[in-house]
């Protein structure tokens, strides 16, 4: 049944069959059917192995040797974890998930005209027709997406009406606690922004150290004409975690997306960002940094699809690797035959703080139009010795000099971020990580 180069799909399909009845909303038949077809599709393919080109830098054999159980609604004291990653300076809505389940008590959804924030499980109950359509319109062939759909335990839906512009960013907080040991945490979210609306979404993934869990978060985004969305992600999962986050964004004419991410947690992380520019003058900016050490591996894969003329995309990713860290940046840019006057840039720079580290960079440009401007650049290097000496000669010791240079290397990625508390938080997280490095 399983496709070549994939790990067998049966173990998780079996897991699904034994867990199905306990999944949320298992009394809703159409949802059960949806889950069942999804698991069939998953089983037919299986988990991607290291010989699958897109997965060659992320080894999922850990998911083969241990079959994670789907998480259960969590009980217990999670306040500390949640407080730790909540930006209290920001007063907008807060949507909290604990071990993959929406936590009503810890969330704070502020009523505001033109914006609707719902828990996915509630939405499925109250708007079955809309929910069905949402799922149907967002089917994927990818096996992992189907596994997520079959076993999802929760998620959120954000709908913003025409011309509505959110005054405050929405915070989405995902925490994993120690009860998530050997669990998979699967969430699925939908964001839709109507014509000329605007929103900023802060999305944070965090977990307890020494807990072995597998998070898989999938988000589908629709941006109508002129809509503008910022997504600001931080990933500070526990050091035993496998983290996967996939965001698929469809942009109509004049829509714009800014996606920022900082990856520094987990033992394996995979971040996929897939914008599709379907309308003229769409604009996408992707900015991110990943920091790895001690056996941690981060893999960021972007897939930028320019389907129509006159759109712009720009990607800047930076990696910092300390002893034992491994990273990959895979940047695919597709420019369709008719997508003339496309402007697509991509840059990935990596800094090795130790020789015992591995940085991979794979730009992949598929350009079928002939009048376009596309650029890409990738570097892997060490700290500039001349710059270090310059700082030494001005009085900074090696430790401070290195810290300053590495911080600057990361700070450049987040320079244009307009929400000051988020920017400060990004730099603070990076600084704390660096403290242990240099």
């Amino acid at each position, binding site marked *: 049944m399983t496709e070549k180069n994939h790990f067998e799909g049966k173990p998780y399909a079996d897991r699904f069959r034994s867990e199905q009845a306990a999944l949320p909303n298992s009394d809703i038949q159409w949802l059960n059917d949806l889950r069942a077809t999804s698991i069939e599709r998953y089983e037919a393919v299986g988990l991607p192995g290291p010989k699958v080109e897109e997965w060659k830098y992320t080894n999922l054999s850990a998911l083969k040797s241990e079959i994670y159980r789907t998480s259960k609604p969590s009980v217990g004291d999670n306040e500390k974890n949640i407080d730790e990653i909540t930006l209290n300076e920001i007063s907008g809505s807060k949507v909290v998930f604990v071990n993959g389940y929406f936590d009503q008590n810890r969330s704070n959804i502020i009523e505001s005209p033109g914006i609707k924030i719902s828990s996915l499980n509630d939405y499925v109950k109250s708007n079955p027709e809309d929910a069905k359509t949402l799922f149907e319109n967002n089917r994927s062939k990818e096996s992992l997406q189907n596994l997520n759909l079959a076993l999802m335990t929760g998620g959120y839906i954000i709908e913003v009406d025409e011309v509505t512009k959110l005054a405050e960013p929405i915070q989405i907080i995902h925490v994993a606690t120690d009860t998530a040991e050997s669990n998979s945490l699967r969430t699925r979210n939908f964001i839709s922004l109507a014509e000329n609306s605007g929103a900023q979404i802060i999305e944070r993934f965090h977990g307890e150290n020494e807990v072995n869990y597998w998070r898989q978060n999938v988000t589908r985004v629709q941006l109508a004409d002129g809509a503008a969305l910022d997504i600001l992600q931080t990933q500070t999962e526990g050091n035993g975690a496998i983290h996967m986050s996939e965001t698929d964004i469809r942009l109509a004419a004049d829509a714009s997306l800014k996606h920022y991410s900082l990856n520094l947690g987990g033992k394996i992380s995979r971040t996929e960002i897939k914008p599709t520019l379907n309308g003229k003058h769409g604009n996408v900016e992707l900015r991110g940094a990943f920091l790895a050490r001690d056996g941690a591996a981060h893999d960021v894969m972007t897939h930028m699809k320019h389907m129509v003329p006159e759109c712009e995309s720009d990607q800047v990713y930076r990696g910092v690797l300390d002893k034992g860290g491994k990273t990959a940046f895979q940047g695919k840019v597709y420019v369709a035959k008719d997508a003339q006057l496309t402007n697509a840039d991509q840059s990935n720079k990596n800094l090795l703080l130790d020789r015992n580290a591995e940085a991979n960079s794979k730009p992949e440009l598929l350009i079928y139009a002939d009048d376009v401007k596309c650029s890409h650049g990738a570097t892997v290097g060490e700290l500039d010795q001349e710059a270090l*000496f*310059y*700082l030494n000669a*001005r*009085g900074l010791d090696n430790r401070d000099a290195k810290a300053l240079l590495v911080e600057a290397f990361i700070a450049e990625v987040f*320079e244009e971020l307009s929400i000051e508390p988020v920017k400060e938080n990004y730099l603070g997280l990076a600084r704390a990580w660096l403290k242990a490095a240099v």
Partner: protein
Amino acid sequence: MLEIKNLHVEVGGKEILKGLNLTINAGEVHAIMGPNGAGKSTLSYAICGKEGYEITEGSITFKGKNFLELEANERAAEGVFLGFQYPVEIPGVSNMNFLKAAINSIRKYRGEEEMAAVDFLKLIRAKAAELEMDPEMLKRAVNVGFSGGEKKRNEMVQMAMLDPVFAVLDETDSGLDIDALRIVADGINRMRSPEKAILVITHYQRLLDYVIPDFVHVLSDGRIVKSGDKSLAHVLEKDGYAGLGIDESAA
């Protein structure tokens, strides 16, 4: 203040300085001139402690301290400033933050409190104004996108901020037009005082029209081959290094 005795320095296994002696006292301005490859920059790096400049013999003593035991940053904190021939660009670090980090590192070494933010701002604004630097440049990344003259001016602002007791200026005059040269010379002259000393390293005599040295030394093939007063610079200007019997092409 600075005493260099029989200094031998190797770079990449090759001996560049071959027994250099130099004594600089407080209140003095010394100039070292010499053809390309004579070892001028090597001398400045050896004094300031750059990695890869291996002292195989001899000593460098600064205010009675054995400098060879100190790291580059410690030498800076002891009051030595190196003006770079090619100031390094540091993307992502603003001039402001760079100088704040430098001042506070030096203060920490000396066991002093960090400088208050208000005092720092006052000081940097004053120094930038003295050296005619546009305050906007303080917010920009260190030397990134600066012209040659702006970089050298920036070195002078840094020197004024860090207030060293001894400055080594390594070809600070190279590549400057006459206006920039005047600013650099002005920066150096501002530092002159009975408690301080300056070592100007230069290929050309031109800077010495603005910064009048007390002593001029000629460096050739890793040694000081001639010392004199400011008139020596004029002799060099007139007759070239060949006038001293130095074969410039052999160096």
